[in-house]
C-alpha cells in the first residue's frame, strides 16, 4: 500500500512564495518594457537635463511610487504578509557616508551606461552582448564590494 506523500505547510508556503516572486518579476519586467526604461538611451535622456531632456522616467517613478505607497498604507493594517511569517523591511538607520558615497558611485555608473540592475537583468532576454557584459561587470562589482566589506568589522549588512 502506498503511503500518501505528506507535504508540510512550510513547503506549501515556499512554493507560493516562489510563484509570487516569478509573477512579480514578470510584472516588473513587463512594466520596464512598457515604460521604455529598458532603453539606456531613454534613461540617459532623462538625466540629460542640460540637453534634449526626456521626462519619461519621472512618470515611471511617479506611477511606481504611487502604487507602492498604497501597498505601504495597506501593510499597516496587516499582521503579517500572506505567505510569510513577517515583513522583512530594512531597519531605519541614519544617513551615513556609505549610503551617500555608494549612491554617488552608483549614479556615476548609471549615467555612463544608462543601465541599472533591474533593466539590465530584464534586457538579458534580448541576447545583446553589451547587456551581458554590463551584467557580468555589475556582478563582479557587487562581489568586489562584498569581499572588501567582509574584511572590515561591521562593514556591510
Amino acid at each position, binding site marked *: 500500500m502506498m503511503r500518501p506523500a505528506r507535504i508540510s505547510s512550510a513547503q506549501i508556503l515556499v512554493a507560493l512564495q516562489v510563484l*509570487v*516572486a516569478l509573477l*512579480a518579476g514578470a*510584472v516588473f519586467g513587463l512594466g520596464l518594457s512598457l515604460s521604455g526604461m529598458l532603453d539606456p538611451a531613454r534613461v540617459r535622456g532623462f538625466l540629460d537635463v542640460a540637453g534634449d531632456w526626456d521626462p519619461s522616467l519621472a512618470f515611471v517613478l511617479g*506611477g511606481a511610487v504611487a502604487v507602492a505607497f498604497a501597498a505601504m498604507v495597506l501593510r499597516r493594517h496587516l499582521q503579517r504578509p500572506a505567505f510569510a511569517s513577517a515583513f522583512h523591511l530594512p531597519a531605519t538607520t541614519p544617513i551615513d557616508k556609505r549610503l551617500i558615497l555608494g549612491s554617488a558611485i552608483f549614479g556615476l555608473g548609471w549615467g555612463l551606461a544608462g543601465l541599472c540592475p533591474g533593466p539590465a537583468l530584464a534586457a538579458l532576454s534580448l541576447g545583446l552582448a553589451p547587456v551581458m557584459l*554590463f551584467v557580468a561587470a555589475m556582478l563582479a*562589482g*557587487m562581489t568586489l564590494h562584498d569581499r572588501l566589506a567582509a574584511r572590515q568589522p561591521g562593514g556591510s549588512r
Partner: protein
Amino acid sequence: MTAYWPSLIGGMLIGLSASMLLLLNGRVAGISGILGRLAQGTQMLPNAAFVIGLMIGPPLYRLGSGAWPSVTITASLPVITIAGLLVGFGSRMGSGCTSGHGVVGLARLSPRSLAAVATFLATGVATVTLMRLVAP
C-alpha cells in the same frame, strides 16, 4: 502628455510588482538586494524565481505588442564594463538602487532612500552633462 501614458502605466506595473512582493512575501523589491541574497545563497528559490520572471517580462511585452522593447546602447564596451563595475559596487555600498531606494524606499517615505535617490540622480545628471561636454 499622451506620449507618457506607457511610461505611467509601466511605472504602475512596477509599483504593482513591488506591492505583490511586499504584501504576499513580505519582501522589498530591490533588485540589487535580490541579487545580493541570491549570491549569498539565502532565499535562493524565490530570488531566482524573481530574476527569471524579470527576464520573462520583455518576451511578454513582445507577445502583446509584436515588437521587442528597444534597447539603444551608445556606450563603448570599455565604458560599459566600467559602468557595470560602478553600478554593482555602488548599489551594494549604498544598500540599494533605483528599485529598492527609488520605488520602495520613497513609497515608505524613508529619509535614507530620499537621500540615496537625490544623490544618484545628481551624479547621474552630472555624468551625462559632463559626457555631453567632452563628446557632444
